[in-house]
């Protein structure tokens, strides 16, 4: 109905005219104004009621129309006009406030790119995102949006990936790195190649998942839906009964109007929509109301170590040098040799050198890669051998006692040790470690404070490393050297003991355990496809703060839903009692009813803005730190 707002306004004016005429003693004018108001306001309501009836759906509009006809019949014109007006006005307010609870999804949608610069036949042109094809080259300038998923061909720029990860701190990306649709190029310039377009991009998938999650109803919401289907016709029957008993048409009609299940039906879903929307905005995908409900009840956290508690990316934690060798000199030689290797431990040494701006030389001679042992080469007239103890033995290099002691000490601390020999003697050790995430400890503490009873780590890694991580993070228990099947059995055992279990993994080798747990959580960079599909909960920004946010958000959402349901039930009960005792009349009944609908929506709206208080403080601090860095550089 296009003119609904005008009709609402007109009926309001007519009611005012009617009241004024009535006060002036013009009885006939008053009645004409009020009846006209009733009739025009009834048109849109009646049409909706009729359409639903044709579909054999019992609608609230039908109840209102029956009540209005009844009120006209008993010549309660004031009542009939006020009821229709309030119903229309209430629907208008509902739409406005509903829009707000749905706004987080709309914000996401607004971030969707519309067009992009594409190179075709050697010329760049602006095309709609729907027309971009896989394999095409895109140009992105400052302020431009990334329209597809793909890889950077050339250039470097900083990107705001908030649409994908919920993180608003820009990240710098260069050649060969992945870009996601929906990211915003902050400053810089890149050319990229399109790999996933249209509906296949991560961003489109996220939007679709959020849309579907908002529809996926919780048990409470599903129950209320069914309830409304029985309740609405039930109200009609009851009001007929009321009429038969009291013989008072007025009471029967009032009963009919105030018993409409409005707030009750909308109360639960509206909380879920707001909660899920809030999550999506912060890089947390909660797949539906059911998941929200279960997540709020979780009391046991189970983590796979690698990639969740630790970064999953080994780094050089420290370097020891011997026989007067300088640290940077050693790194220069070793990294140059390792740059020819594809081994992941070798790569961490190269990365460390790049981090320290140390030059890497490509002019290697006599390069030899020994699988499972290491690498050797000649550089700057020096013989360099990098690898494990076996490689040293193979080259008849004696490991001095002080070096061996250092190496053992490093291994006890959970490091993998790489030996570097220059001209026949070990002159350096590299300690490489998969670092614990910086935010893991504080986040786990917060999770405990919010209601988690035990935190357990499962890992395929060795006992030694597992123990160190467990100790450092003060976990309740850990189990090492497990196969994927063992993890699954363990999760099942925990569930049988009556725990509500959340299992967090990187989404690939832990998939069975993730699927078995009450809540499966996938953590990973930019949401891999597997993670998006198998898990109940996905952290797109790959950080722990999002987990604490998700957990407390779930609790807040369920609390909000309960408040709404109890409030709605309470209001209806009070109203019905009021009507039966003759204390509440038609117009005020309608008013209270509409007000209760608006109130539950407004209550749910609080969830859109929901943030953990201490989190806000922390992120503000982070922002300050960032500003400091910017200023000082």
């Amino acid at each position, binding site marked *: *109905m*296009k003119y609904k707002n005008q009709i609402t306004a007109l009926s309001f004016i007519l009611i005012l005219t009617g009241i004024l005429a009535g006060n002036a003693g013009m009885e006939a004018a008053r009645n004409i104004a009020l009846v006209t108001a009733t009739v025009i306001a009834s048109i849109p309501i009646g*049409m*909706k009621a009729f*359409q*639903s009836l044709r*579909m*054999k*759906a019992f*609608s*609230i509009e039908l109840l209102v129309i029956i009540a209005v006809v009844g009120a006209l019949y008993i010549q309660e014109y004031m009542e009939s006009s006020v009821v229709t007006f309030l119903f229309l006005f209430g*629907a208008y307010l*509902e*739409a406005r406030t*509903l*829009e707000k609870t*749905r706004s987080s*999804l709309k914000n996401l949608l607004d971030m969707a790119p519309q067009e992009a610069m594409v190179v075709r036949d050697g010329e760049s042109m602006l095309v709609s995102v729907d027309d971009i094809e896989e394999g095409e080259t895109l140009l992105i300038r400052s302020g431009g949006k990334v329209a597809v998923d793909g890889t950077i061909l050339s250039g470097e720029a900083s990107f705001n990936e908030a649409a994908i990860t919920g993180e608003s701190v820009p990240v710098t990306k260069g050649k060969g790195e992945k870009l996601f649709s929906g990211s915003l190029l902050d400053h810089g310039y890149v050319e990229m190649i399109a790999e996933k377009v249209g509906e296949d991009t991560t961003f489109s998938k996220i939007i679709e998942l959020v*849309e*579907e999650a*908002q*529809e996926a109803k919780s048990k409470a919401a599903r129950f209320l*839906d069914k309830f*409304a289907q029985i309740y609405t016709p039930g109200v009609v029957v009851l009001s007929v009964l009321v009429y038969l008993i009291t013989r008072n048409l007025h009471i029967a009609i009032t009963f009919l109007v105030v018993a409409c299940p409005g707030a009750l*039906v*909308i109360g639960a*879903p509206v909380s879920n*929509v707001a909660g899920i929307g809030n999550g999506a905005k912060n890089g947390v995908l909660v797949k539906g109301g059911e998941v929200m409900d279960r997540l709020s009840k979780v009391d046991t956290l189970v983590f796979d170590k690698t990639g969740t508690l630790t970064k999953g990316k080994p780094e050089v934690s420290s370097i020891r040098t011997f026989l007067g060798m300088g640290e940077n000199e050693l790194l220069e030689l070793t990294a140059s040799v390792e740059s020819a290797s594809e081994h992941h431990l070798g790569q961490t040494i190269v990365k460390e050198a790049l981090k320290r701006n140390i030059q890497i030389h490509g002019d290697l001679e006599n390069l030899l890669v020994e699988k499972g042992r290491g690498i050797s080469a000649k550089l700057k007239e020096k013989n360099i051998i990098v690898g494990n103890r076996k490689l040293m033995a193979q080259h008849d290099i004696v490991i001095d006692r002080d070096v061996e002691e250092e190496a053992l000490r490093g291994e006890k601390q959970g490091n993998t040790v790489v030996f570097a020999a220059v001209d026949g003697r070990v002159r350096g050790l590299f300690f490489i470690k998969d670092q614990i995430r910086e935010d893991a400890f504080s986040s786990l503490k917060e999770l405990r404070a919010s209601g988690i009873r035990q935190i357990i780590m499962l890992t395929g890694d060795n006992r030694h490393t597992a123990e160190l991580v467990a100790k450092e993070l003060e976990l309740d228990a850990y189990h090492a050297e497990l196969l994927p099947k063992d993890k699954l059995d363990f999760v099942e055992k925990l569930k049988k003991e009556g725990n509500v279990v959340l299992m967090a993994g990187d989404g690939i080798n832990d998939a069975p355990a993730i699927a078995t747990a009450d809540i499966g959580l996938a953590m990973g960079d930019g949401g891999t496809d597997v993670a998006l599909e198998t898990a109940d909960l996905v952290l797109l920004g790959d950080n722990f703060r999002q987990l604490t946010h998700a957990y407390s958000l779930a609790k807040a959402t369920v609390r909000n839903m309960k408040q709404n349901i109890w409030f709605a039930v309470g209001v209806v009960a009070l109203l019905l009692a009021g009507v039966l005792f003759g204390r509440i009349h038609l117009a005020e009944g309608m008013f209270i009813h509409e007000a209760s609908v608006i109130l539950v929506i407004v209550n749910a709206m609080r969830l859109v803005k929901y943030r953990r208080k201490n989190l806000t403080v922390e992120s503000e601090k982070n922002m300050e730190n960032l500003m400091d860095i910017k200023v000082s550089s």
Partner: protein
Amino acid sequence: MKKLVMQLEQLTCPTCVKKIETVLEKTEGVETSTVLFNSSKVKISYNEEEVTPKELNRKIMNLGYDVLSMKE
């Protein structure tokens, strides 16, 4: 079998969902239809030989809902 997504005006009453779904499913050539209440979208999979997107659009307009955009 083709897929069609229509963006409708803001849906406010849960009963509209049932109304739109019933009408569409009764339409010749429509395989399945889902109304996403919160994002006010209709997803339809249909047989292009029996019904056109234009006809489906008209059906929904006749029910009293504005179709803002369509995507195949």
